[in-house]
C-alpha cells in the first residue's frame, strides 16, 4: 500500500485545527482524509468503514482521548498518533505507554506532523511498500536486511559482500538512522550494551575500527565515520 492511499482520520474538538491538518495532508498528496470533532463521532466513523491511521487529541469535553484509545486498541489495531496540548512528561509517557505510535504536542509544525505520520505508515505497512533506495556510503551499499556491506561499481572486487557482526550491524544502523549527526559515546554504548555501559568505551573503539575496515576505503584516515574528539562519532552524509 502506498502512503498516500492510506485512509486517515483526524479527531480533534477544534474545527479549524482539523481543517488545517486535513488541508496539509491533502496538499501533500494524501487522498483519503476525514475529520470529526468528538470521540462519539469517531466511534461511528470507525464502525462504518476501514481506517489506516488516526490522529487523536487527548482533551475532549466530557471525554478523554486516552480512554477512547484504550477502547479502540482493544478492538482494532490501527496506528495512532496523539496530538495534544498536554506537554507534561507524564502525559507523553501515558500516551506512549498505552501503545500509541507517537505523541506530538501542540503547537506543532505541519511539516513535522507529515514526517511523523509518514514514518509511522512506512513502519506499519512496510511489507507492501516498494523497494527502498539502497543506503550508500561512498562507493559502498549497505543492506541492513541482509546485514552486509556491498562493494558497488567502480571498485575492485565489485559486488563483493562483507558480512557485519551483530554489534557492527547495530552501530551502523544507529549511524544510518542519524546520518550527519554526532552520536555520543554514551548513546552508542548504551544502545548496544544496555544501561550499564560504563567501561565499554574501549570495546566501542574496537568495534568502530572494525566497522571502518568494512565501510572506509582507507580505515586509518576515515572519510565517512568520523571521530569527534571527546564526544563520539558521526557518519557523514
Amino acid at each position, binding site marked *: 500500500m502506498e502512503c498516500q492511499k492510506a485512509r486517515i482520520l483526524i479527531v480533534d474538538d*477544534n474545527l*479549524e*485545527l482539523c481543517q*488545517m*491538518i486535513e*488541508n*496539509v495532508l491533502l*496538499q501533500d498528496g494524501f487522498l483519503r482524509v476525514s475529520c470529526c470533532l468528538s470521540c462519539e463521532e469517531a466511534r461511528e466513523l470507525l464502525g462504518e468503514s476501514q481506517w489506516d491511521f488516526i490522529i487523536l487529541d487527548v482533551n475532549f469535553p466530557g471525554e478523554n482521548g486516552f480512554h477512547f484509545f484504550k477502547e479502540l486498541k482493544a478492538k482494532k489495531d490501527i496506528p495512532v498518533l496523539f496530538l495534544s*496540548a*498536554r*506537554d507534561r*512528561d507524564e502525559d507523553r509517557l501515558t500516551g506512549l505507554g498505552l501503545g500509541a505510535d507517537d505523541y506530538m*504536542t*501542540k*503547537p*506543532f*509544525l*505541519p*511539516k513535522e506532523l507529515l514526517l511523523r505520520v509518514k514514518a509511522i505508515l512506512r513502519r506499519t505497512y512496510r511489507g507492501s511498500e516498494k523497494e527502498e533506495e539502497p543506503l550508500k556510503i561512498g562507493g559502498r551499499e549497505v543492506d541492513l536486511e541482509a546485514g552486509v556491506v556491498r562493494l558497488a561499481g567502480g571498485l575492485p572486487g565489485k559486488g563483493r559482500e562483507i558480512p557485519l557482526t551483530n554489534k557492527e550491524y547495530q552501530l551502523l544502523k544507529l549511524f544510518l538512522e542519524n546520518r*550527519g*549527526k*554526532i*552520536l*555520543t*559515546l*554514551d*548513546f552508542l554504548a548504551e544502545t548496544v550494551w544496555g544501561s550499564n555501559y*560504563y*567501561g565499554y568505551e574501549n570495546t566501542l573503539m574496537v568495534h568502530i575500527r572494525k566497522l571502518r575496515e568494512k565501510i572506509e576505503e582507507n580505515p586509518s584516515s576515515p572519510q565517512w565515520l568520523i571521530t*569527534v574528539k*571527546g*564526544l*563520539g562519532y558521526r557518519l557523514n552524509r
Partner: protein
Amino acid sequence: MKSLIKIYLKYVVSVVVIAFVFFFFQILLTLYVGVKLNLNEGPAEGRKVYARELASVLESGAWTEEQIEGILAEAGAEFAMVLDQRGEVFLRFGLPRELDHRYDAGTIASFARWYLEDYPVTCWDMNGNLLVIGYPKGSYWKYGVVMTTDNLSKYMMMLAIGLLASAAFTLVLIIGFGFRYYRKMKTVVRAINDLSREKAVWLQETGTMGEIGKSLNQTSRILARQRETLQRRDEARTSWISAVSHDIRTPLSLIMGYGEILEQRPSLDEDSRKKAGIIKEQSLQIKELIEDLNLTSKLEYNMQPLRKETVCLSALLRKAVAEAMNRAEEEGAAYPIQLEIAQELEGKTVQADGQLLLRAFRNLLNNAVKHNPDGCAVSVRAAAEKEKRENGEQMVWADLEFYNSGNGLPGEIEEFINRGAEPDSGTHIMGLRIVKQIILAHGGEISARTDGIELKIPL
C-alpha cells in the same frame, strides 16, 4: 542550644559570685563591729577603766562619798564594796543589805568570774583588798570560755566542714534551680528554632513559661495560616499559568501551521512567503516562551517535582554538546565547541532530574548561539572539586564551566545570577532564570562572569 548552655553557666557563675561576695561582706561587717565594740568601747574595757579610777581614788585616801557616787553613776554601776583579805566588807557604797556580809574564798572565786546574786560585777585588786563594783541586774552578759586546745581545733574543724558543706549545698541548689529553668528555656528555644524552620509548634500554656508558650503558639498558628495562604496563592498562580499556556496551544498551532503553509505555497510571491516565515518563526518563539514560563513558575513555587534518577553528568554534558553541535551545523555561523571533561568525573553519577539538567545545559549552550549571531568559540569544562566545609564535612562538587568568546553577559544578568537582583523588565532572562532554578533545586550553586556561567552540582 549552645547559647542557652552558655546562659545557664553564666547564671551559675554569677550566683556563686554573689554568694561569695555576700559571705565576705558579712565576715567583714562582723569583724568591724566586733573590733569597734570590743577594743575601743567594749564594756569590759570600760568597766576596767572605772574600776582603776575608783581603786586609785580609794587608795589615795582623800575621797568623799559624793565623789565615789559620782564615779559609780558615771559608770552606770549600782553599788561598790571593798573586801579585806579575810573577806569582810569594810567599805560599802549603795550596797544592798542582803549582800552586806562576809565572803569566803569560794564565793569570791565564783562571783569574780560570774555573777554576785545575779548582779554582774567587776573586781579589782587593791593592794590585797578586793574592790567589787556591782552593776544593775541584767545590764551585762558575762560568759567565760574554757576549752582544751584539742577541742578548740576540733571545734574549728567542725566549723570549717560545716561551712564547706553549706556552701556545697547552696551550690547544688543554685545548679538545680538553674537546671530547671534551663530545661524550660530549652523547650522555648527549640520551639523558636522550629518556627524558623517553618515547623508548627505547641508549648504548654501554664506555669512559669506559660505566657511565652502562649505567644509562641499564637505565632506558630499565624505563620501556618500565612504559609497556607501563600501556598494557595502560589498554587493558584501556577495552575493559572499552566491553564493559559495550555489554552494558547491550539490557537498557536493554527498560527504556526498556516504560517508554514503560506511560507511554502509556491503561488505566493517571495515577499509574502518571507513574511509568512516570520509569522512561523515568531510563533515558535512564543511556544518556547510559554513553555519556559510554565516551567519557571512551577520551579519557582516548587510545583515541579524532581524526577530523580541516576544520571551520569559526563554523558549528559556530551549529549547536550553533541546536540548543540548538530544544530550549529544548520545555523551556518561557526560555533566551535571545545569540551573538556576531567577523567575523575567520567562515569560519576548523581541522583538528579536528568531532563531538567539537560534543559539547563541546553539553555546555556543555546544562549551562546542566540546572542552571538556572528559565531563564537564555546568552551565547556567539567571537573570534580573537593571542598572542606567549616564544619569539617567534605563536599565534592562537579564543577561545570560554560564560557564563550562572544559578546559577553550584560552586567544586569551577571547581577541577577550572582546576587539575585531582578533586571529591568526589558531584559529577557527566562532561559538563565530556569538554569538557575534547576541548579538550585539540585542543591547546586551558580555564578556568572562576563564570559560565561559556572555551575556546581553536589556529587
